[in-house]
């Protein structure tokens, strides 16, 4: 990919400008960091596509969404042709941004589907997670807004809440509200996201800010430290002080210097005391939503009796005594938002989720600079940040990191990509487009550390030997790789059309898929011929849509030999060959490692 920088290109419309926090609340380091960025060098490049190859565009679509669509007639939002029509990767991103407001919200949808009421004989599993599971599956598979869903999925893996730790009732509504706030802020400002996450009942339950109270010597209780600790460690500044290039600052013994102490955790825990569910407000409550779940869709409210009104010193900055609980929280969030670590810490994780597990420092620094200043003086503008991640010249591998660039695709991404690419369909009602039998759906992580941690590498493996990471390998082991194949095999070869519970692709869709594709790409295949007679052509366009990057010739030959060894006498045989081709390509490590 060869993207030329064009400094004259206007940047995206800025997210709403938030007020600059009072200077008295900022550390010297934070002030220095604010002064640092040079907007002219951090403007995302234009990325015109005229000179780009299909491979490069397909790779971009794999990073920004769920791969390149092979359909020409509809659902072409992700197609290479759509990107070319819009003229630049920038324009495609802007257009994808514009889809966000039209996408349905989870709570509204779930209420319409009757997940908001409990009553005798209710057929809805209002107690369980099926509602939100269904909603997430369906939206990811069917939505045109692929970028938005990839980005929400990314945020959901950083600012983790999980139904695993939620109350046992109304899980779908509770987490649905959290999805809605991620959706609302995904292309907004990171600071607003921090507030919404902090006050959300889902996070309140999950990391125990809900009901946390000031030190009470009569009761012998201390404020809950859970949210305070993880907010700093995982959501904003991270464990270690970072220098102006985003590298850990090393102390006298060569050990990295901590960015906060346990005293900071205790102080921040005091900030987060005094919050409860809003059980008073009824304005706007849908008729089909019970009181309890409705309170889970409203920001938490103050319980003045439980708040610690004393002064707190957080990261060297004093939050004075006597502020309101809300002022306390907002000032603390300002400190974390303005902390010089935050742009680097968030930039690195976003890159890891979308592009590569081991971004070079210049890549992280480039994205962090945009986080600090979108070019118009706004810090935390997520549109600009997503663009910086996806449009960077570092988003494709350079000659220097050919053997390390990229990331293992999350299994969920491969399932959604399969369903989108081949237009999987399914019956009706509750299970429409539902991914079932899969335990790594969004909002199901075993802990706030997600399914895989940013610092993981397969012990003893090649990445570990190089001192690099490969987080998604935390879910890989000897049995898991075989199970993943079996899961995909079941999806791909599922033929029981009568069982409307499961995703599947219908044989006629396969014929139609190939036929449609043929008109545009494989135009030398005459209409009505046996499309699998030239399996290599089908391989090549599947290769393009699934991953961009061509597989090795060894792998291509291997797969085609296997496919061509299968019977080819009937229409059913062709479908079977096509399904086999799909399976072998999608279980190949060369596909699974997005590069």
């Amino acid at each position, binding site marked *: 990919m060869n993207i030329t920088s064009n400094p004259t290109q206007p940047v995206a419309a800025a997210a709403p400008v938030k007020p600059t926090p009072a200077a008295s609340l900022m550390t010297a380091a934070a002030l220095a960091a604010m002064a640092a960025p040079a907007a002219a060098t951090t403007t995302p490049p234009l990325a015109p596509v005229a000179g780009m190859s299909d491979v490069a565009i397909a790779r971009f679509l794999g990073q920004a969404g769920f791969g390149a669509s092979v359909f020409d007639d509809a659902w072409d939002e992700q197609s290479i042709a759509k990107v070319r029509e819009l003229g630049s990767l920038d324009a495609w991103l802007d257009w994808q941004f514009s889809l966000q407001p039209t996408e349905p919200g989870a709570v509204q949808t779930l209420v319409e589907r009757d997940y908001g009421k409990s009553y005798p004989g209710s057929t809805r599993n209002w107690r369980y997670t099926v509602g939100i599971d269904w909603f997430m599956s369906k939206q990811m598979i069917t939505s045109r807004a692929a970028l938005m869903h990839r980005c929400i999925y990314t945020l959901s893996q950083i600012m983790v809440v999980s139904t695993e730790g939620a109350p046992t009732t109304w899980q779908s509504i509770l987490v649905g509200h959290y999805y809605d706030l991620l959706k609302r802020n995904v292309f907004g400002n990171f600071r607003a996201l921090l507030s919404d996450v902090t006050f959300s009942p889902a996070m309140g339950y999950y*990391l125990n800010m809900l*009901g*946390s*109270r000031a030190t*009470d010597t*009569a*009761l*012998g*209780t*201390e404020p*809950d*430290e859970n949210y305070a*600790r993880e907010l700093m460690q995982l959501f904003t500044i991270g*464990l270690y002080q970072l220098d102006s290039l985003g590298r850990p600052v090393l102390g006298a013994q060569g050990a990295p210097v901590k960015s906060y102490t*346990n005293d900071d*955790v205790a102080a921040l825990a005091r900030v987060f005391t005094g919050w409860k569910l809003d059980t008073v407000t009824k304005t706007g409550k849908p008729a089909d939503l019970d009181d309890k779940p409705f309170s889970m869709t409203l920001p938490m409210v103050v319980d003045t*009796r*439980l708040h610690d009104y004393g002064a707190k010193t957080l990261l060297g900055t004093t939050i004075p005594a006597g502020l309101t609980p809300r002022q306390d929280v907002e000032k603390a969030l300002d400190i974390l938002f303005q902390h010089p670590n935050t742009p680097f810490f968030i930039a690195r994780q976003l890159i890891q989720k979308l592009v590569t*597990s081991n971004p070079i420092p210049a890549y992280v620094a480039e994205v962090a600079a945009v986080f600090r200043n979108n070019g118009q003086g706004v810090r935390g503008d997520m549109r600009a940040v997503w663009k910086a991640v996806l449009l960077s010249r570092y988003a494709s591998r350079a000659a220097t990191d*050919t*053997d*390390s660039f*990229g990331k*293992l695709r999350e299994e969920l991404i491969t399932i959604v990509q399969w369903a989108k690419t081949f237009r999987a369909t399914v019956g009706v009602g509750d299970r429409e487009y539902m991914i079932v039998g899969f335990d790594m759906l969004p909002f199901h992580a075993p*802990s706030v*550390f997600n399914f895989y*941690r940013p*610092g993981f*590498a*397969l*012990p003893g*493996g*090649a*990445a*570990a030997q190089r001192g690099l990471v*490969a987080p998604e*390998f935390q879910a*890989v*082991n*000897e*049995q*898991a*790789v*075989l*199970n993943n*194949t*079996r899961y995909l095999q079941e999806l791909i070869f599922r033929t029981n059309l009568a069982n409307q519970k499961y995703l599947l692709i219908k044989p006629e869709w396969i014929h139609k898929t190939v036929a449609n594709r043929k008109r545009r790409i494989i135009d030398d295949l005459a209409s009505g011929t046996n499309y699998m007679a030239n399996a290599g052509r089908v391989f090549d366009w599947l290769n393009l849509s699934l991953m961009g990057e061509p597989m090795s010739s*060894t*792998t291509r030959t*291997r*797969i085609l030999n*296997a496919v061509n*060894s*299968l019977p080819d006498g009937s229409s059913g045989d062709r479908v079977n060959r096509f399904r086999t081709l799909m399976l*072998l390509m999608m*279980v*190949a*490590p060369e596909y*699974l*490692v997005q590069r």
Partner: protein
Amino acid sequence: MSDSSFSRRKLLQAGVAGATSRFALPMLSGLAALGHAQAATASDYKALVCIFLNGGNDHWNTVVPHDDANYASYARIRSGTPNPTGSGNYKGIALLRDKLLPLEPAWNSPDQAGRRFALNPALPQIQKLFNDKWASIVLNVGPLNQITTQAQYRNGINLPDSLYSHNDQAALAQSIVGTEGARSGWGGRVQDQFPSNPLGCIAVGGGGLFLSGANTAFSFGIGADSAPSLPAMPAAVAACYRALMTEAGHSHMMLKDYSQVGRRAFDNIANIRAQVSNGSQMVPSEWFPSANLGEDANPLAKKLRMVARLIAANHNSPGRQVFYVSMGGFDSHDHLVTTHPKLLGWLDSAVREFATALSMVGAAGKVSGFTASDFGRTLWSNGDGSDHGWGAHHFVFSGDPGFRGGHLTGIAPDISNWDRNSAAGKGRLIPTTSLEQMAMPLARWFGVTSPSELAAVFPNAGQFNPNQIQLFN
């Protein structure tokens, strides 16, 4: 059965359905030789099992202070009083003294100074194992760079990295040498000292750091319920699939790593399937009744059932195996008094069923296990739970006749005069026994005995008295 103090009669009392007939089955000893033909230096079989409690077990409500002075302090700190503000439903997090299960140590070390302990009411089977000398407890153990005083803690002198952080402390508990990013675990490094057995380190149901060696040992992952199996495919497709998954020629590091896992899967699948198949005949499902409760099945019992099956299939041939199992949910910031007993109850029944199964197949004397966790927790309540701490109490289990069961080892903390600034604050224990000191007796039992081998497994062991914790005669 002669290899243990766990009598047949007690087994039958434990209510193992079908025990008598199953026990009469001949052992399939020939098949067991598949697993570890390479273990050249081992003349017998031993297995070490790590039971990891994810999230940081609340050790205060697991092994509870029980002498008058310490229980009074525990209850004072954890119970509080009815909520004067009238909001919420604060109830305190102390356990009632008369519900606790007292421990009757076989021997009291002078370090304990008369302090006594009792178990959470959810641990009746472990109480019995303790009193029957199948279990011991290591008090106040945790990561240390050196023996650390409160003054040193307050001044930040040579402390372990990233205290109180989940992922870092969980990694440290498994590796003993490093936090997040650690590349080997002590179980793997122990296995490194033996010639490589590809199935020498097995993680059942996830995990891996503990079992990854610094040299040859690697963690082989399998599920709890069944052996891995290859997807069914036509022959030519299956051959292609195998070639894709095991390709050795990649240059990209992630392709290398993925293919390495693929090669391990294909290289060992016949062997592991044979072991699981044989072991399943020797250890029937009904020996783990708590694993068979459908939606309420005990997840740890399922994993330990698989471990028992693999041990059953292997223990009649010389060799060494290390296993890792884990159970989540221990990060009890809230609902401590309602959720924690359920988790401990799972631990309790799983360990008991495991011990019983091992006895039934005659392997109990060859197996030792222990619990580990991210960290201990605060003694102070945060309302209805506790926060991240440091030192903790942990269990060691063994059926080896030389095991010093029924012991409280390590140094019992004295909390009788604690306030919120004591120790590391809010009731966090500063460990008085290092992870190395607890692990080294287990490693020596396993057969890692030479100073050079021990130094390879525990590079910082020189900082600590190697004989502080005596787990075996």
